[in-house]
């Protein structure tokens, strides 16, 4: 049986690297990664991941814009998206929820629990739908 596939989107090398290692080692995820919003949309269309972990603040196309583009595309609109946001912006969580994201995780994250947090958000979403 193939493992679940997550698309990780962040412009920071260290964050992509550590999240990739964490998700593979702890959660058994198959991970692909993108460094910006435009690349993420293209990869999501092509690879149809089971979930997308999406940084909010990126210099290219930011997280909310990327999310809207994913929502507008029938090929990607059903993919659950989890925002990854720095603590300073965590007050925006309610706004993010209104957009329709599956959940929001805060940076810095714990590499040991990241996978469980994602599983928990996806599980809650599955329960709701």
């Amino acid at each position, binding site marked *: 049986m193939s493992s679940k596939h997550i698309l990780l989107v962040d412009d920071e090398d*260290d964050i992509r*690297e550590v999240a990739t290692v964490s998700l593979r*080692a702890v959660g058994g995820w198959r991970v692909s990664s993108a460094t910006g919003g435009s690349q993420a949309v293209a990869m999501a269309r092509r690879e149809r991941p089971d979930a997308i972990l999406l940084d909010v603040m990126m210099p290219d196309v930011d997280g909310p814009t990327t999310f809207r583009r994913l929502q507008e595309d029938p090929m990607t609109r059903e993919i659950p998206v989890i925002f990854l946001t*720095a603590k*300073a912006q965590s007050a925006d969580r309610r706004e993010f929820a209104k957009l329709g994201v599956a959940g929001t995780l805060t*940076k810095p994250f714990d590499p040991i629990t990241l996978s469980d947090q994602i599983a928990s958000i996806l599980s809650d979403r599955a329960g709701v739908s």
Partner: protein
Amino acid sequence: MSALAASVQTIFDDNSGAFLRRVTTLEQGVGAILAGSLGESLRAYAEADAHKLAGSLGTFGLPLGSELATRLEQRFAGGQGPAAPDDAHLTQMVVALRKQLEAHICASGSSRPEPEDDTLIAGLAAITGHGPVAVAPGRILVVDDDLPVREVLASILSEAGYDVRHVGSAKEAREVLEHDTIALLLSDVSMPGETGLDLIRFALCEHPETATLLISALEDPAIAQVAMDYGAYGYLYKPVRRSAVLIGVMNALRRRDMKLRERRAT
């Protein structure tokens, strides 16, 4: 250490230069705020770098580092503006941030436990934990595996009135650093065995009151950048003119002197 922890540590090590560069930007930004001269370009860079540090450091086991970076990010977001109540603590915050990052890098490099520093863990009071540090002209240690080169460098410095020693390897330099008080380490980059970069990293961790200056025939900006990230006070290219050596040494010693005075004052 688990495989995951080891991988996370490796990623931290690989990115430590970038983290230090960002702290340097924050230091420049804080300096500009306190001087009342924070321009938009530096403000934007400093805010962005603080944001990146805030999002990263906690993931690598530096939660206080993330906390300090978050506060600095919020301050930079406000621009120069009128003086904010926390401005008096900005220097302490950015010094504490660098201190914590450097301690983590040192702990990683030597595989020894991170030094316990209750004041650091307590937060900004870290700085006040330092006792007075003697500021003395001090001795210069020249390190180069090429005997004629180090003799010329030692001669230039001796003639200028400096107290100089010279050795031919990083290993010998470590021994001198252990037993002698060295104000400035002037080291070649490419040497058999341990390189000058490794040596200044060691000095930064174990002898933070020693200023470091690198000299190399390699005109590679990337190496120079790494050296500066590690904390070197300068980088000289061979062949080097007498005046360049003396100016580089004077500047490095002056910066060391200022740093030690700042520590005593805080």
